C-alpha cells in the first residue's frame, strides 16, 4: 500500500509543491524543480527535525519567563515530550545566554539552553 503526502518545499523561496509517494522504504518525490527538493522531502519523511523554542519559569524578581531553545534540532515527534520537560523547570538566576538549563534532554544528546541572560 503506498501513501501520498503533499508538502511545500522550504529549501528556497520558490516553494515547490511536492507530492511524495511512500511505499514501504521507497520514497518517490514529484513536483520538485531541483535535486535539493528531493533531499528535503526524503529528510522530512524519514526523520523530520525542528529546533524547539519556548520559555520556562525563572525565579527572578525582574523576569517571569526565561526564553530557551534546543541547541540543535530535535526529532519532530519529540516536541511535546520536550515541552513537558521544559515546563517542569524552575531556573535560578543568574543565567547567561547559552547556558544549559537541561542537559541531554530525554537522552536525545541535545541540551536545552537559555536564549537570554538574567542577572540575579
Amino acid at each position, binding site marked *: 500500500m503506498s501513501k501520498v503526502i503533499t508538502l511545500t518545499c*522550504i529549501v528556497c523561496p520558490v516553494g515547490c509543491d511536492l507530492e511524495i509517494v511512500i511505499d514501504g522504504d521507497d520514497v518517490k518525490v514529484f513536483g520538485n524543480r531541483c535535486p535539493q527538493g528531493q533531499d528535503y522531502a526524503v529528510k522530512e519523511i524519514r526523520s523530520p527535525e525542528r*529546533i524547539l523554542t519556548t520559555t520556562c519559569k525563572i525565579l527572578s524578581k525582574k523576569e*517571569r519567563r526565561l*526564553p530557551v531553545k534546543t541547541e540543535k534540532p530535535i526529532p519532530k515527534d519529540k516536541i511535546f515530550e520536550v515541552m513537558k520537560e521544559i515546563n517542569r523547570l524552575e531556573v535560578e538566576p543568574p543565567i547567561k545566554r547559552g547556558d544549559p538549563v537541561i542537559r541531554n534532554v530525554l537522552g536525545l544528546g541535545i541540551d536545552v539552553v537559555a536564549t537570554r541572560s538574567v542577572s540575579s
Partner: protein
Amino acid sequence: MIVVIGGGPAGMMAAIETKKKGKDVILIERAERLGGVLPQCIHNGFGLHYFGLELTGPEFSEMLEEKVYELGIDVWLNSMVLDVTPKREVIVAGEEGYKTLKPDAVIFAVGARERPRGALGIPGKRLAGEYVAGQAQYMTNIQGYKIGNSALIVGSGDIGLIMARRLTLEGIDVKAVIEIMPYAGGLSRNINQCLKDFNIPLITSYGVKTIQGDNRIKEVVVAKVDEKGEFIEGTDYVYKVDTVLFSVGLLPEVELLKGAGIPILESTRGPIVDQYFSTPLPGFYTVGNGAAIFDLVDNAVKSSIVVANAIEKDYVPEGKFIPLLPGKDVRVLVPQRINVDKFDEPFTLYVRVSKPSIGAKVILSSHGKTIFKRTYPALRPAEMVDIEITPSMLTGDEKEILVEVQESV
C-alpha cells in the same frame, strides 16, 4: 550630538554605528530595557544575514545590547520622547525629569504598530479575548500568561503563523488561521513548521463576518469572500473559540514624525526617505520599521548602517531628486526617491510585491527605457526583493523611475 529615538534593533544599530564614527550619541528608550519587540520574538530565524547565525530574537537583541554598552553609549531607559519640533528640539520625559535636547541629527527608530481589528471593520461587540498578535506574544512569552483555551487566528502573516505554533505548544487549541486573500501571507517555511506540523488548517479566501459572546468571545463567524472581497452567501462557518488573534499587518509609527513636519506617504503610510534614509528635512532620519515595514530584522538594521554613513558625510537632503514610483503589483518601495546630486555609492532598493508569482520579472524603467530587469524564480509579498542600484545605471536626467512586476507568459 546625535539622538536616536527607540532602542529596538534598528535604534541600537544606529547608535552603535554612529558612535563608531566618533559621534556623541544618546539612545532613548521608553521601556525599562533595550530590545524593542525582539525579546518577545523567542522563535529562531533571526540574524542569518547579519550575524551569519540562526538566532532567536532574544539572542539577536542581547548581542546588539552588549555592543551598545561596550561602546559606552549614553542610554536613557524609561524615557519617553514627547515631541520633536521642526527646529530639531527633542523633548524627553525620563528618569531625570523633563529635558529638551538640541542634537545635530535625530534618528527615528520608532518601529511600527499592529493594525488592529478596527482596521478591518468587523462588526460585533468588543469582547475579552481579542488580541493583536504581538500583544498575545508579549503576554505569552514575557508575562507567561495562558491567554485562552481555544483560538482563531485572523491573518496569515508570519507573526500570526508563529503565534499559531506558540499557542499550540502552550496547550491552546488553535482551530485555524483565516486569510482573506487567496494565498498565505507568510513564508512557506512558517506554513510548514507552524501550521502543518501541528495540523492547523489555513483557510484562504475567508474573512471574519462577526465576533460574538457576552463578556468573553464565544464564537467567530467566518465566510468565503469573492474576488471583490465581499462575503458569499451561504458560506458561513462558525468557530467556537474564546480567543481571536489579529495578524493583519504593521504600519510605521509616525506620530512623532508628523510633529516634526516630516511628510508621510499615502502608499506606505510611512515617511518619505531617500537612499540615505534621510527624510526631506535636514538632520531627520528614519530607520527600521519606522521607515518602512521590512521583511527581516537583518534588513531593518542595515538601514541604520546607511544612516550612520550619511551622518558621517554630513549629508544634506538638497539637490535633484528622482522619485521612484510603485507600478503594477508593487506595494512598497524603499527608498521612494534618489538624490542624484549626491549619488556616488550604490544603495539597496527594497521592493515588496503585492502578490506571489513564479518566474516573473522586476523591471525598473524611465519613460519606457529599461534601467534594470531581472527574472526571479519566485516573488512573494512576505519576502522583499533587494536590488542594488549603482550610479552608472542612471543618466541623472530621468524624471521618474517606475518599478513594476511583469509576469511570465
